[in-house]
């Protein structure tokens, strides 16, 4: 029994890791006022880049770095459209998702079904991993898990307690006033979108070089969209995102646990998506002003406009 519980919690944390990485990135972008619906596509680009680079160099860490760079590069498309051209952010984000999913399919075609010789595997932390129950659950995880937790805490601290964080938040709340303080709102928003791209790509890399055994087209399977819902669920707070991401990780694991009970696998596959709607439903029942959404989210800002 104890072994089962440990294994379930462990797998929950693994399944929640890409969701946490993506959500933390999306929080940065949305806090700066830019809605980024490109997460799913950038995740796919990150996944395929990490896989290809790892496959050819045999170094998964190089693969991870390449994925982050690729994710930031392709996010420039959304940053340029939404910040410089003040385009509709919904449409531009969708375009990024289409492009990203397409590119991942195109570039990944020769690798379909190919396994990786070297992956990023679990990295037990000395001493801590020997603690009963807590040790194997928390301290014998993939480095992506530690990275996600550290980044969530780091981004929370950055947003709440540093000058950069104040500037990001005020760019999303009142860009005009921020600009009069001598802050370059466009630059802040560009950087936030690029950061979000890097985070999404990391989430994708986790899927392709740590979570999965080989390259499968469409391995992101809607996780990028769940990330956008989790951002709302977390009320734009990275610490609350930790809770949300692992809650959803649990739902992914639940699918496999309930299968032997004879419940239709198709019904179980609906669970994460149903849960997303349910979570938003609970959020929607609250007073929308208390939801704490950035005031200027998805509103284009043009310099010098009165």
């Amino acid at each position: 029994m104890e072994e089962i519980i440990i294994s379930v919690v462990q797998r929950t944390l693994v399944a929640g890791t890409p969701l946490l990485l993506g959500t933390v990135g999306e929080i940065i972008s949305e806090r700066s006022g830019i809605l980024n619906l490109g997460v799913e596509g950038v995740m796919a680009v990150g996944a395929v880049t990490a896989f290809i680079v790892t496959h050819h160099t045999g170094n998964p860490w190089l693969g991870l770095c390449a994925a982050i760079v690729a994710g930031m590069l392709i996010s420039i498309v959304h940053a340029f459209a939404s910040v410089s051209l003040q385009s509709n952010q919904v449409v531009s984000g969708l375009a990024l998702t289409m492009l990203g999913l397409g590119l991942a399919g195109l570039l990944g075609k020769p690798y379909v079904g190919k396994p990786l010789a070297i992956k990023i595997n679990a990295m037990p932390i000395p001493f801590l991993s020997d603690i009963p129950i807590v040790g194997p659950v928390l301290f014998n995880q993939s480095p992506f898990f530690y990275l996600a937790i550290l980044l969530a805490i780091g981004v929370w601290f950055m947003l709440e307690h540093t000058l950069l964080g104040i500037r990001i938040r005020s760019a999303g709340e009142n860009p005009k006033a921020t600009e009069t303080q001598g802050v370059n709102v466009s630059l802040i928003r560009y950087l936030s979108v690029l950061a979000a791209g890097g985070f999404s790509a990391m989430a994708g890399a986790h899927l392709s070089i740590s979570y999965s055994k080989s390259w499968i087209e469409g391995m992101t399977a809607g996780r990028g969209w769940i990330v956008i819902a989790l951002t709302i669920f977390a009320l734009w707070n990275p610490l609350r995102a930790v809770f949300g991401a692992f809650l959803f990780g649990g739902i992914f694991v639940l699918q496999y646990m309930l299968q032997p009970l004879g419940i239709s696998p198709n019904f179980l596959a609906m669970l994460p998506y149903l849960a997303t709607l349910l979570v938003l439903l609970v959020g929607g029942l609250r007073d929308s002003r208390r939801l704490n959404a950035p005031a200027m989210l998805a509103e284009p800002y043009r310099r010098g406009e009165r």
Partner: protein
Amino acid sequence: MLHVKVSDREQISALGTFLTLVLALAAGMVAIGLLFIISGVNPFFAFKKIFSGSFGSLYGFKETITKAIPLILIGGGLAVVFKAKFWNIGAESQLLMGAIFGTWVGLNWGPSLPSPVIVPLMFLAGFLGGALWGLIPAILKLRFSINEVISTLMLNYICAEFLTLLIVGPWKSPKKFGFPYTDDLPDSAILSLLPGSRIHTATLIVAVVAVVVLTIVIYKTRFGYEVRVIGENPDAAKYAGIDFSRTTMLIMVISGGMAGLAGVGEVAGIHHYLSYPDSISSGYGFTAIIVAWLAKLNPIYVIFSAIFFAGILVGGDAIQISLGLPAATVAVFNGTLLIFLIMGDFFTKNKVRILAGERG
């Protein structure tokens, strides 16, 4: 020093809009060509294949029209909801729900009813299925302020699983050698085709009539005016006493219902039975988003942009076969073109001048 000055255009001319569109598409094609080169494909060869596969032969052109049918229906509906800035990304599953409803009617009532009765009934059921599925995100937004982009997408995944659940379970045919398909629709429920093609004329007529009617509704009626005001200036809409909830629900009934009609057309005209979601719709719900955008959200222009993108779908199939490219190539095409269309919009709406001297 050079700097860029951006100001609103006072007048947006039709010719200017059209030229920007053409330029945006051309620039998009150049970008796609570069992507082809990166993937090791000769872009001129690829473009030639796409064009000759879709518009260059009679067979190809007939296939293009066949695939334009669902795109006209869905794109027309999306043009209306997008005008009101309601972002329905769920047409893919509204199509599937229409297919499910239509198939149920066809399988259960088809054997005892003649074609002129059963076919309209199936379209009606399909419209109803798509409309009901489309109403869910509208209600979720109005009642619980749930972002419609997310809810429509989640409903896409849920509906695809639901359809699969039906065809592997209760609706599975005993006559299909164990494949997860439903029974064939009875003959009376199958749409007749234009001879020598796969063009199901009934759906094509319904689609063209629908977008013509929608164009009149949007530009000539009080309701259409309300839809446009809600999109352009929601505050003004409130002061003008426009019923936001009623209008939102109505346009989602229209948009979802039209996607549902497309679903009936695909099953009754092409497949004749329900199978996996991917085979019922090859991403029509997503492609139609760009179709609507290229048509500048004007339902009547949707006919032309639908044929254009249907051509890319058919041509995409051709290069998949001849160049061994994956199905995702079409998504690259669509994503890139959409990005350039958005960028083109900026130059339609704004005057951009590069000036010498200090910033003014």
